[in-house]
């Protein structure tokens, strides 16, 4: 059984290899992804993420354990990458009209993920105003949550693919293809996976005209970056794969030391000149 729904701004595909799976397994997996979207979406002014951005510098904000978990992952990758991964760049994307504007921006005053403090496991605050965007990590987390729910429902083998960020589990080796950055309608077989996750960063589907800016921002100098190749990261969990693709594509280093810390591997597909 394979189903697909529009979620997280993309198409989320859930595939189950089992012969007669309980239908509720798939429904629950999709619901988990919907929940991640409603908790951590930047576009939704009611989301917990928007509440953190609005109020965490004024008062402690109570959050769902899943939001707390994603923020902890984000802090961990921030630390290990020495700041190359930092979701505190939302204001840059708002300024470039790549994200919606919910409140006034004073771009000199924003802190980063390092400023977010946990007072309790589900209570956060920040000394500085924040404009966090979890776009680079929450999708991977949602994929992991969906996989956890499938496994909890007794599903033996399957995969969850959120617009190209995916995780597979079970006992059957699955061939993994990624898009050729030179010709995105062509696929390149990059390996096979039984258990694990892969996420990819590239700009080929950004649908941009020449005047608009890239959605990828280097947190260290706050510049929008451009690149034509694609970077994929293979890791045990999709949340790490997703976040680490930003480390690799921003640094341009497929052997970045933090990959080893997360037992991850990176693959770069160069663009070819031939058409």
């Amino acid at each position: 059984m394979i189903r697909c729904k529009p979620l997280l701004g993309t198409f989320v595909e859930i595939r189950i290899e089992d012969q007669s799976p309980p239908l509720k397994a798939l429904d629950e997996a999709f619901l988990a992804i919907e929940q991640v979207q409603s908790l951590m979406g930047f576009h939704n002014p009611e989301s917990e993420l928007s509440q953190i951005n609005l109020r965490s510098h004024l008062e402690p904000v109570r959050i769902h354990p899943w939001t707390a978990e994603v923020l902890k992952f984000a802090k961990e990758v921030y630390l290990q990458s020495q700041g190359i991964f930092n979701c505190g760049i939302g204001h840059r994307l708002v300024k470039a009209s790549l994200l919606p504007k919910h409140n006034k921006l004073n771009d000199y005053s924003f802190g980063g993920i390092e400023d977010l403090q946990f007072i309790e496991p589900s209570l956060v605050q920040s000394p500085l105003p924040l404009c966090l965007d979890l776009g680079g990590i929450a999708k991977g987390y949602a994929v992991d949550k969906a996989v956890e729910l499938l496994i909890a429902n007794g599903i033996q083998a399957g995969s969850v693919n959120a617009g190209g960020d995916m995780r597979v589990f079970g006992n059957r080796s699955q061939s993994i293809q990624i898009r050729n950055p030179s010709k995105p309608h062509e696929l390149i077989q990059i390996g096979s996976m039984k258990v694990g996750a892969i996420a990819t960063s590239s700009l080929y589907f950004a649908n941009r005209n020449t005047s608009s800016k890239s959605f990828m921002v280097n947190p260290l100098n706050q510049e929008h970056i451009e690149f034509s190749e694609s970077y994929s990261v293979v890791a045990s969990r999709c949340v790490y794969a997703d976040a680490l693709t930003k480390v690799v594509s921003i640094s341009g280093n497929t052997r970045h030391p933090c990959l080893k810390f997360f037992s991850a591997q990176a693959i770069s597909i160069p663009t070819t000149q031939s058409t």
Partner: protein
Amino acid sequence: MHMNWKPNPYLIIGIATITAPIVAHAKIYVSIEQAQKILIPNKSLVKNPIIITEELQDKIRSASSIRYPFQGDRIWRAADGSWFIVDEVVGKHEMITYAVALNPSGAVTGIEILEYVESYGYEVAEANWRKQFVGKTAADPIKLNQDIQNIGGATLSCKHLTDGVKRVAVLYEIALKNQTLSLKAK
């Protein structure tokens, strides 16, 4: 936490282009009947086609930015006034057939993708993706799935689909709402 991953050996030595490109791709997810059971479970649906007059088509078009005409022959209604509507959106990169379920007051209760086709207007691409489906039927879904790729890569936006759902909402307001009301009046 572990991982079982075997990279393609050609990639390791840095000659990715040696692997024959596989051309993307079309996927059939669920049939209309399956989508009906998923989105409106345990209710029997009656086909309720409507004629899309030019006037209605214009209203739908101006409300949603989608030019591709809406077809009125894939509309179903449940006894309680819920609706099940199948529609298509055609984007620059893709064509998507999807189903929307509306509750009796017209709120969207679920969206399910039925079919997704990437089309770049290349004859070759078309021939190749069609090959995936040769000899396969919806009655053999497991086998069908096993033969279809796991595709990683950049995010394809679902913006077109969002526009599609908008036009279904407009269709409800203009053409279906009254039917629900008259049904209640009976």
